[in-house]
């Protein structure tokens, strides 16, 4: 993992920044939300992919692409969480509009 992080830090940082931006926007965004049912399906899909990655059942290049995708996804989600939390903090501490 450390090897991959040093090898592709550019892509990983890009995923993180994308997550931060998305998280920042999500707090005040009024767009569509994912339904509960879809969320569960997505969580199950993510769990299955993580399981496949740790079990190393996907061989060769697809296996590598899966690892890469999951790491980027994880950093994106981490970025989203931090971004949303920051935006929320900024919103709750700013003076109400006059």
């Amino acid at each position, binding site marked *: 993992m*450390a*090897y*991959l992080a040093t*090898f*592709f830090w550019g*892509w990983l940082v*890009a*995923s993180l920044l*994308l*997550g931060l*931006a*998305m*998280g920042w926007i*999500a*707090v005040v*965004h009024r*767009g*569509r*939300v*994912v339904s509960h049912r879809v*969320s569960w399906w997505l969580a199950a899909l993510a769990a299955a992919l993580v399981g496949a990655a740790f079990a*190393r059942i996907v*061989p*060769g*290049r*697809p*296996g*590598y*692409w899966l*690892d*890469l*995708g999951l790491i*980027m*996804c994880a950093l*994106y*989600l981490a970025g*989203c*969480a931090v971004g*949303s*939390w920051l935006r*929320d903090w900024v919103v709750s501490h700013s003076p109400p509009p006059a």
Partner: protein
Amino acid sequence: MHGLFRWSRKWWPGLVPLAVLWAIAAWTSTEPLEADLVARSTAALKDTVLDKPKIAVEGRDISFAAHAFSEDGRRSAVAAVEAVPGGRLVNDETGLVPEATPYVWSAERDVVRVTLGGSSPLPASKGKLLEAARAALGGVEVADQMNLSRGAPPRFDNAALLLLDQIAKLKDGKITLSDTKVSLAGMARELGGREAIAAALRNLPEGYLVAANDIRAPPYIFQAYKDPVAVTLTLTGYVPDNTVHASLVSAAGRKFFSEKVVDNLKASLGAPAGFANAVVPALGALSRLSTGTLVVSDREVKLSGDALYEAAANEIRAGLGKDFPQGWQYKADISVKPAAAPVDATVCQQLFADLLGKGQIRFESGRTDIVADSAGLLDGLIETALRCPNANIEIAGHTDTVGDEVSNQTLSEKRAQAVADYLVKAGLPANRFMPVGYGSMQPVASNDTDEGKAQNRRIDFVVR
């Protein structure tokens, strides 16, 4: 926390650019990553001895194929590849180098190249053998057809290196090492090469033995040419050592009483057994010819030329006497020199004096047996006697003054008689010869010196 869950339901739009990023990252990074892993895996195996190592990377999965020289070596090589950072899986396709039984290694030499074949235990020893072959063989091309195999006998490298030195001594041939047994076949490059190889094989490492040594050598040649015009005896070719060389040259000096001996002999190993015992009597036979060539090739003696008269030719054709060694072949191609024109008694006397001035008939010390070295001189005397068939000849025996006069007288008479008998045996009529003994009464030189005594011990031919 509840907020986070609520917000997360609106994070999905970012997944679209994330997927694009992911696709670009996968597209651009896969090959550099694979190349990097190949380089790291190769570097990890740098100090491991393997045959035909092959590393292929797909994504982060490393396929590692190689032949190791031991189970420990194989395991440590796999562990080294597994420890490469970034690798995900190692497909272990390694095995052990095949074991050879029997363990055969060979070196074969033909006109243009030396081919090393069979098995060698490690890449290092294979390299060492090739390097040694190139060094030992000078500019000769060395072809490598050696495989790597396990199961070499102990001290294999030392044995093979020693055998490589021997291949350099061959003109063509093959040396095979099968387990610890050495077989050799072929033709040595030089005379004595066979012996040099046999001597070197005694230094094979302990436990190795020579199963078959069929190395042949070029023929061992000795030649002698008697030239009646230049009055020389030319010796060429090889003799086993300096002792035999000296004894052959001195024997030639005794047998060829009037010829100058031209000695072009060289000492070399590889002489067949009984060399001197065969060559000395053959030189004796050559000394009886007016002109002739003696060729000794390995164990074959060929003599050709002209004898001085028929009886001599028959004797020479018959063989070289009891000293001629067993296992040797003798081929004589002898003709008889045309009889010289008859001469009168005076000329005959002159011819006898000329011959006896160049050499003396010699006897065993204190006895009446004529030594074999005098055969050539006696043939000359007989040929001369044949040229004056009407002359009667006194064969006069003389001694020096050593010993008492009576025994000297008897000895001189018996020696004169022995010479007369020899001439009669050669076919001359007995009534032409009068053997007479003079004891020490007619010295031709002082009896005070050894030289003078030697001159006084003589047989004279006097035409009456």
